[in-house]
């Protein structure tokens, strides 16, 4: 068993899941691949299993947050040291995983590294104009709350160490979790950083966010981020938290 785990949340990704798993295994052989099948109605789980991944199949659709959290619980219980989230739809390039690991290992104070499509490299798929506008808004708010520059708070391409695994296993936001998770990590004194990556257009499935849903998404995330900032009291600088939380 490896010490590293790749968590791949997938919902009806039968067209892309096998290729994603093969890519991860080729690009990052040190990582065990765990697919969280979020109550798919197609054969995602079977395809993932055949491609050599471990599969945790949720009995019904719980949403991306709960699916990813299942992966972190798995990582906690099996003693993995590092976990990386990779979308099952082919948007994230597994060849970036070793770079993320290097960035995480380079600085012992860094506990979470996010792959950002807006940092540096001006290539790759950057989503539609309106969506980018929303991302910029979130980026501003998250940067304000965390006192550091965050360019891509909606990116689900993330790697974290043992501390992040334990935090997310016990507490991970539900509906649209990425933005909240960054704020949560920061309020628990986990130092985060970003790494420039190129993202690709998805090869299967479709975005969870479109049309009127995007308005709900915007408002819900704004509310959740505000509440979670209030819940943690004043936003703490990394390292200023009591021993009990830092463990």
């Amino acid at each position, binding site marked *: 068993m490896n010490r590293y785990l790749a968590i791949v949340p997938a919902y009806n990704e039968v067209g892309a899941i096998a290729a994603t798993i093969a890519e991860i295994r080729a690009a990052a052989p040190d990582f065990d691949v765990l697919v969280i099948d979020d109550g798919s109605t197609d054969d995602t789980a079977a395809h993932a299993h055949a491609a050599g991944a471990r599969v*945790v*199949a949720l*009995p*019904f659709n719980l949403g991306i947050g709960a699916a990813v959290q299942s992966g972190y619980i798995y990582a906690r219980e099996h003693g993995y040291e590092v976990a990386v989230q990779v979308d099952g739809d082919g948007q994230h390039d597994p060849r970036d995983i070793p770079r993320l690991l290097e960035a995480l290992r380079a600085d012992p104070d860094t506990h979470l590294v996010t792959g950002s499509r807006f940092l540096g490299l001006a290539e790759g798929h950057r989503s539609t104009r309106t969506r980018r506008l929303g991302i910029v808004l979130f980026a501003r708010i998250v940067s304000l709350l965390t006192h550091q520059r965050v360019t891509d708070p909606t990116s689900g391409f993330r790697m974290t160490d043992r501390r992040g695994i334990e935090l997310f296993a016990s507490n991970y936001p539900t509906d649209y979790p990425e933005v909240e998770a960054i704020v949560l990590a920061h309020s628990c004194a986990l130092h985060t950083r970003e790494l420039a990556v190129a993202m690709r257009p998805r090869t299967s499935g479709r975005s969870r966010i479109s049309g009127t849903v995007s308005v709900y998404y915007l408002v819900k995330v704004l509310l959740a981020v505000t509440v979670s900032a209030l819940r943690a009291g004043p936003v703490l600088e990394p390292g200023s938290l009591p021993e009990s939380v830092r463990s």
Partner: protein
Amino acid sequence: MSIATAMLLLVRTSSTTATLQRIAVIAIAVIVFALVFELVRQRALMERYALLWLFAAVALVVLAIWRGLLTSLAGDLGIYTPANALFAAGFVFVIVLLLHFSLVISRLSEQNKTLAQRLALLDERTERLTEVSAESDVRTSPAAQRTRAAGKR
């Protein structure tokens, strides 16, 4: 539904004080009481939620029997028509009830999520253990031992 009808009857009662109408209100309250009781008996309704409805029914009976209570309460609150006092009280009751249900649903969703995650993780573990034990069964089964013995010979 029947509570709303009872409320309407009660409103008219307070202005006309017709005995028949007061009897009707009490009858409706009794029906609500009996219905809730029966639902609890059939385990369709939990006691903790039944209490709310029983309380509402009792309140109706009290208002029907105690002549002038509604009028004087409304007067104390500065509400001219007793009907409006009754509607306001009913409205507040429903709002609080809805908030309560939202809380209950939130808690249930959270528990439901945790259960589903646990189930899926246990499922994965069982499957893996079954595979492992199936492999070791093959290795230690008489057939496998025979094959191995044959191989040695």
